[in-house]
């Protein structure tokens, strides 16, 4: 079990109130405590005061693969360079596609693909995924320095699995980050996420 009792409780309390798609209204991003690929427990509160990007990922999903031809890594580099924290989250249950049974496997994959994420969270039991209502891979969330949910949805506005479509797409995460840095409200706070279903166990 990768969540602490306190945060699991928070999530359990938050869920009925928020409902799954209702996070944007409720604004506050649920806290979590999930082990990363190094076995270290990461929480949302440890990044208080910083922008946090959450990226749901499944290495077996063609839509995740589409963006790992450089698009996602580029976004990770620019976001973290600008001071944001980037957390990739794998919510695949054991026995489900894309699941990593060891942190070493996840780290090997990150190294191979040149992931510039701050950490890879292994949300094996899906508690964090369900608390955020993560439905697809990729499904993106941007949390502002005050811990409010500033953006949730797709990475861009062309919902296909083809790499060549990235060029003509508007990157909604980059746009949200730019809005936050400029101190203005995020113009597109929500979009419908596209991709493979998150493979909850």
């Amino acid at each position, binding site marked *: 079990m990768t969540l602490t009792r306190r945060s699991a409780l928070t999530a359990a309390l938050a869920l009925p109130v928020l409902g*799954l798609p209702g996070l944007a*209204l409720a604004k506050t991003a649920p806290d979590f405590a999930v082990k990363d690929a190094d076995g270290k427990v990461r929480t949302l509160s440890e990044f208080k005061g910083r922008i946090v990007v959450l990226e749901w990922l499944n290495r077996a999903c063609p839509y995740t693969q589409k963006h790992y031809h450089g698009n996602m890594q580029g976004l990770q580099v620019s976001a973290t360079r600008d001071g944001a924290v980037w957390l990739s989250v794998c919510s695949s249950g054991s*026995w489900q596609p894309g*699941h990593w*049974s060891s942190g070493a496997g996840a780290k090997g994959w990150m190294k191979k693909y040149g992931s510039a994420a701050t950490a890879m969270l292994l949300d094996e039991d899906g508690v964090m995924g369900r608390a955020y209502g993560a*439905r697809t891979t990729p499904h993106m969330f941007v949390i502002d320095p005050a811990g409010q949910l500033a953006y949730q949805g797709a990475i861009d506005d062309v919902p296909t*699995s083809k790499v060549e479509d990235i060029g003509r797409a508007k990157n909604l995460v980059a746009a949200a980050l730019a809005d936050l840095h400029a101190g203005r409200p995020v113009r597109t706070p929500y979009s*419908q996420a596209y991709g*493979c*279903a998150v493979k909850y166990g």
Partner: protein
Amino acid sequence: MRLLLAVLALLFAAPAFAAEVDTGHLKIELVAQDASVAPGTTAYVALRQDIDAGWHTYWRNPGDSGEPPKLTWTLPAGWTAGEFVWATPKTLPFGPLTNYGYSGEVILPVPIAVPANARPGPVTLEAVVDVLVCEKICIPETGKVSVTLTVADGAPKPDARWGASVAAALAAAPKPAGLTATFENGKTLTLAVAGAPLKGADMSGAWFFPFQGVWIDHAKAQTAERGSDGLTLTLTPGYAFESGKPPAVMDGVLVVGDKAYEISATPGPAPAGVSGLGPPPGAKGEGTGAAPKTGLLIAALTAFLGGLILNLMPCVFPVLSMKAASLARHAHETRAARRQGLAYGAGVVATFLILAGVLIGLQLAGQQVGWGFQLQSPPVVGVLGLLMLAVALNMSGVFEIGTSVQGVGSGLAAKGGLSGAFFTGVLAVVVASPCTAPFMAGALGFTIGQPPIVVLAVFLALSLGFAAPFVALAFAPGLLRRLPKPGAWMDTLRKVLAFPMYGAAAWLLWVLSQQTDAAGLAVALMGLLTGAFALWLWGLGPKAWRQGLALLLLAGAVALVLQPDSAAPRTGESAASAVLPSEAWSEERVAALRAEGKVVFVNFTAAWCVSCQVNDKVALSTDEVAKALTAANGVYLKADWTNRNPEIAAALAEHGRAGVPLYLVYGPASETPQVLPQLLTPGMVAGALKKAAGT
């Protein structure tokens, strides 16, 4: 994929007919309603999908994930294509998510405007189709499809093959039917629909499929309330409502009974006659409980079959020899034989259920284990080896347990025989675990990620299947009576049958040698030697000091065979066949080789998996396969699961398997591998390699 497209482009360069594209998990083709069409009219061609069992594609609103199919047309000048006429979708629940889509065969017509100045003669309509097909995993497929029509004046002539199907799809597609629909978002989101078609209609399974994904929460239940003129559905609002910008129109498809209508709901109070008559009789969301139950039933049936066939697998032979020896002894007493059979069955069932329990426990604890998992532990293999040796020595007459075996018929001996039969059942299961039988793999794969009760049910079915033949035999006095009368031959038979047991012990030691090193094997051999001596000592007769010493030595023997765990487990290559050079498997290696355009043959195997070893010898080590591999420009990868390996367990699970063997053949041109059966022949492997290479 590029190669596939090139091949497809070649295939379709000559526009003459409609041909289907097989993308691995579905077949797609363009079919026509009318073979001949008139200028200035609207013709319908349709994208026909023939989706493999268990897989699905998506509706216009795919729900929580997924992507609808897309056609990108290449049409002659003046011709234009419209949007899909979408067939009624189904809900596809997946964990906490729900998608909307199709399974089986689906026909999606597209209106084609034939220009008024179209010249008479054949015309080919081409399109690139992009379709996402998913099971547990999702695969985007791309292919070029085309259909050739003839432009001719006069009434259209229906296409002989597909005309009726396309016409039926057009007729069945949901259409507006003059229904009045409103929605209100107060405490809950309600959708009220009224109109003539709903008067007294069968409203079971009522469901609203919205055209947009942001309006409702797809995964939540939709409860229906009937009225005299319509119905009210209570929905869970989606993001659009919570963002404070509710839609001005909520349109979609309303399914009631076996009918479907397109509706367009506007905000406002409900029309009259949409409530008050309670929920529809027998109301039940489609696929909310029925589907898993059928899945379980099928899994249980296949598990039963798998259990039956497991009796024929090589691992079970040594134990069957024990069983045969005991049956021979009781053949001529109907009651004793029956009791024996039942005790054996009880032993089998109990052991399977214990195995299932351990499996569930380990999986709940997050361990990657599967069928045969216990043999991944060297101490377990060592203890089993000692046990086999003990049984063999017993059958050889080195020692006896309990009262005289010759005293059949006395109550005491019968009792002793019963526990013996139970124990035989236990042993049969334990040694059967390195084998998976046909049908069994699928059933065990089904249990992956299922709740414990389902796992138990499948294991129960498996155990009943496994126990059935012997229990049935014990209840067939006619068959048993054909055996010769008891006598000296029985003792000889028993001694002969000891040798398969020695063989089983030898085999287990070989497995152990694969798992540890020479030192580990030496320690285990010492243990077996000590055990044999202890048993001989015991057999000398009942003297307290001798038996005490024997027990002490036996304990020492067990301690010794438990040792090899400390030896460094060997990884990677083991049990390599001489003929076929192989490399160690990894997901990355498979991807890299496929990127190079190579055919990849993956063998998921383990030293303790007897089916794997048999396949290795019978099929994989043959010249035929070696030649086919070379001809296909293929690479042979081995995923060795002799010791625990979570990556391999995960890969097996991705293919719905809980254990080895699993044989995959990847071709450069297809996204998913061919899965070969669990019992191989050289021709089968060679054929699959050939097919993968596209020759």
